[in-house]
């Protein structure tokens, strides 16, 4: 939950000369415009992220909306017990983690690779055109992406499904229905939709690499590959690390709409993740408390992952997020 908080800021290097300490009031006065600019952001987090946390208390109650927070009965950890000992937990955790792992392996490096490739393009026009084209899917809703997928991969009329069948032969595969194809389809959708958008931040980082470094490397006799390895990659490494830490907080957040739209009776056993489960239990079955308990568990796990990755990054000698 807290993952959206910190932008990938670069920490100021401590100045060698110590300034005299300002009183808080002087500081407030001197930087008043900066503080003023921070206010809307702060208000956003307060109203939309922190105030709703009050509702988390219902995870420990048998919440009845009519009776309200005060009137509902407290039940302690009952809902958590139910979750951890229930028949669904193992499957949900497994599905969520597998999709998360696939995201790390495929979706995380993809924008880096694409950004590096784009960076090597000489022709500015081509580079910008490609960039714009691969952004576009980001602006389509998952509903549209899902419809396109059904259209292209449906067993009866899917164009791509038909093409593959024409080339490979054999029995027709129902890519959108069969359980074994669920994860590949989800990964492909994610790659198609988010890779282009993800390149933005890396392209920005690449643009900031000092051109002198390349020149120096060339003078030292470095070829393209060497330049890439010794200049480009180290230059964007901090960005990669920060992005990795930020991503870790979202690992358990599978994209709800995407998965919900692709789920059917044949693939539910691999498609059920915490997010769809929370929706089903909470919204359609009215199990507010139980759903909140599941959500809270997910949130806590996400925070732990962020701290873990941050710690790991620091241990590996990288600059962490905090």
């Amino acid at each position, binding site marked *: 939950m807290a993952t959206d908080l910190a932008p990938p800021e670069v920490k100021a290097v401590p100045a060698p000369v110590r300034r005299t300490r300002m009183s808080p009031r002087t500081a407030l006065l001197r930087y008043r415009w900066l503080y003023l600019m921070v206010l809307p952001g702060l208000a956003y987090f307060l109203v939309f992220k922190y105030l709703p946390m009050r509702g988390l208390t219902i995870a420990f109650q048998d919440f009845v909306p009519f009776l*309200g927070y005060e009137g509902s009965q407290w039940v302690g950890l009952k809902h958590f017990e139910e979750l951890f000992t229930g028949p669904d937990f193992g499957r949900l955790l497994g599905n969520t983690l597998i999709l998360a792992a696939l995201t790390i392996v495929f979706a995380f490096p993809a924008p880096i690779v694409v950004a590096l490739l784009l960076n090597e393009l000489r022709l500015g026009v081509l580079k910008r055109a490609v960039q714009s084209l691969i952004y576009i899917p980001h602006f389509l809703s998952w509903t549209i992406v899902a419809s396109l997928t059904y259209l292209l991969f449906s067993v009866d009329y899917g164009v791509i499904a038909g093409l593959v069948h024409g080339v490979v032969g054999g029995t027709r595969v129902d890519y959108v229905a069969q359980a074994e194809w669920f994860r590949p389809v989800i990964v492909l959708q994610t790659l198609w939709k988010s890779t282009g958008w993800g390149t933005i931040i890396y392209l920005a980082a690449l643009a900031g690499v000092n051109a002198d470094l390349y020149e120096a490397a060339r003078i030292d006799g470095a070829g393209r590959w060497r330049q890439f390895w010794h200049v480009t990659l180290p230059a964007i490494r901090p960005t990669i690390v920060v992005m990795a830490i930020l991503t870790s907080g979202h690992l358990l957040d599978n994209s709800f709409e995407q998965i919900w739209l692709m789920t059917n009776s044949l693939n539910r056993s691999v498609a059920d993740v915490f997010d769809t489960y929370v*929706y089903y239990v909470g919204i359609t079955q009215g199990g507010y408390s139980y759903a909140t308990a599941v959500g809270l568990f997910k949130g806590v796990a996400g925070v732990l992952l962020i701290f873990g990755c941050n710690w790991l990054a620091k241990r590996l000698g990288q600059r962490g997020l905090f």
Partner: protein
Amino acid sequence: MNLTSRRLLAGLLAISTATAATACSSGDEPGATNELTMMVPLFGTAPDPAGEMQKAVEKLAGKKLRITWVPNAEYGDKTNVTLASDKLPDLMVVQDQKGPSFVKAAEAGAFWDLTGKLDKYPNLKPRNEQTRLNSSVNGRTFGVYRVRPLLRSAVLLRKDWLDKLGLRPPKTTDDLYEIAKAFTEKDPDGNGKKDTYGLIIPKWPTPVFNSSNPYNAIDVWFGAPNGFGMRGGRLVPEFDTPEFFAANRYIKKMIDEGLVNRDFATLDTGKWNDPFVQGKGGIIIDVNVRATQLYGLLKEKDPDRYTDMLAMTGNLARPDGQKFSLPFTGYNGVLAISKQTIRTDAQLDEVLKVLDRLASKEGAVLLTNGIEGRNFRVEDGYAVHINEDDPAVKTMNNDVDYAFIQLGTTASVGVGGDAYAWKPASKAEQDNLRLRAELEKLDLQTAVHDPTLPYISPALTAKGATLNPIVTDARVKYLAGEITEEQLKAEIKRWYDSGGSQAVTEFQDLIAKGGN
């Protein structure tokens, strides 16, 4: 994430409704005014509170109405939020009145228990005992039900295909199989290619097992219970009967032979009509009102021939000739009365009198058709639109069709009741309307009602997320050939072991206690 934003929205809505409710109730003694507040679903744009329709409804009701119209897509969320706030309107339409949030609120005393109280109002007295029973909650009546057809399952077929192959609409499941086979193999569209199939089955959006989908209809036709049923003094679920397996072998045979769309596990229900209209598939098992949609779509495609393109029949008999029909609940939500603002019996009586006037013949016509001589006239017992070019009348028509009809309890969408049916454009469509009424009457005699409908099993509510998909998914897997019949039986056992047994016991006790 989606849920977070939903929760946020809910919070904001709660704040805004709370302030709105405070704003209108300030200074008013609750119930002492000549005004009723309501919350009602909306399918278009909200009517003008000073508009002609609202004035006419207020005149009949004898009260000023302050109606909060809520778009239907958000109605469920908004209901939950309203129930969570402490400002309930005097009257609200509750669509999911078996849902835990309403039931818990009602049992906590938020709404009037109307059990036995409606009989002295001539138009509110339940007209159908089965529907009254279906709409009750554990033996209690928490609202006035909004009527819908009690039976409306039907088989819709491409009439032009039947005619070309010299076939007649089916009477039995065997007929249906033969027709599906002929539609697949005998080139019913005459284009020389084998590019058609028989039955169109979509992916059902809810994992709840007995949700009146084509599978359930076929189960019931073969003699399985509708949801749950008594067998030898014991309550059993639909899927724990030999008839269920017979029905599924039948469906599987059709699927294996290619008589059903291959994407039956994924086809969106929103696209259910497409293969039918495009001439790919020829049979739909659903509700009879789908005929209206299909006529409309076929007319767009082929205005000259569309009246000869649709045939309809009701429930089918099983191979041995015995017939069982799949009924519906007979209602769509209830009008519930808040105890918060309507405090005394006298006040309740006043509100019920208002509802009684709206449920009268005059009220039914007003809410379903509009104002006679203004936006419609009566012709051969049908209502026909008039003055349609007048913008004011256009507004009236919208107000009726997309808003006020939702207040109807004795007549409504698809139910004539005391109101007039709109006169269809062609004779075929008029015949279809008549056929619906005939089939409803005929099939009701063989209707298999679900004895658990009036009751709520705590176990099923609590464990629904685990229980509901088990057999629903297993059936589809069985039909797709991914698991065997033995494995399907194992999944049914898993349903029992995961809490299903408890749900059955609870239902059985409630039924025994209810004495129905």
